[in-house]
């Protein structure tokens, strides 16, 4: 990356002259009612396993839950889904649902309301703890049996691969003495 690009900041007063008409949060929000907004939050953050997993990873890593939920809500404001006032109304229920999900999954996390001492203790505990080795989850019996059956039923794979060059063993013998099989009729020389 170009070093000059990294330190290239907007000039003083750029925020006063920039065209900000198309910012999503300047338009009316997509979910103006609380129930709709709460449903949108649950659909996009709690019911989406990918997003929930990344949120849990942050919580396990020592990021306070209040920060995770605040970021999610401000992100919704940024995308124009909810208004900033709605994010304040949504904060409590969103925090409750997210922390319940963490409790159910047995994750240790920082709630964001701890004292400084508790915060330091949590991070010291994180540093001393070794990350558990990843264990391969064993396949269920039914799946294992099915996989074995499929393997047995498979025909033998030809040598050299399907697209490989034919091996010496499989040379097809052609009768070269037989007559021409060309479709174009040969013209007799006069």
């Amino acid at each position, binding site marked *: 990356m170009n070093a000059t690009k990294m330190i290239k900041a907007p000039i003083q007063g750029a925020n006063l002259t920039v065209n900000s008409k198309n910012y999503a949060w300047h338009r009316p929000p997509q979910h103006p009612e609380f129930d709709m907004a709460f449903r949108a939050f649950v659909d996009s953050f709690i019911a989406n396993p990918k997003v929930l997993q990344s949120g849990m990873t942050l919580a396990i890593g020592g990021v306070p839950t209040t920060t995770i939920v605040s970021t999610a809500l*401000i992100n919704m404001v940024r995308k124009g889904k909810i208004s900033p006032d709605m994010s304040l109304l949504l*904060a409590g229920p969103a925090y409750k*649902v997210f922390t*319940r999900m963490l409790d159910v999954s047995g994750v240790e996390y920082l709630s964001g309301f701890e004292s400084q001492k508790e915060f330091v203790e949590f991070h010291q505990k994180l540093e001393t703890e070794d990350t558990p080795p990843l264990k391969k989850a064993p396949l269920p019996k039914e799946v294992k049996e099915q996989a074995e059956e499929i393997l047995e039923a498979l025909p033998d794979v030809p040598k050299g691969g399907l697209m490989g060059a034919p091996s010496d063993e499989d040379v097809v013998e052609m009768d070269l003495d037989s007559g021409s099989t060309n479709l174009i009729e040969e013209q007799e020389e006069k």
Partner: protein
Amino acid sequence: MNNMFTALKKAMYNYNNLDLLTPRKRQAIVSTYSKFANDYTFVENLVGGSEEDENEEE
């Protein structure tokens, strides 16, 4: 409170620690959410139900 993050954090604290608030503040929060379908008790039971089901299975 001149910070959005601080305001959100305070909202989260008040909602999740109703017992620590004064009765008037507690009533204000409960009555605010009682207007909606997803009110305080609904949110309380939204994820809590799964724990009860697990206990029943055991």
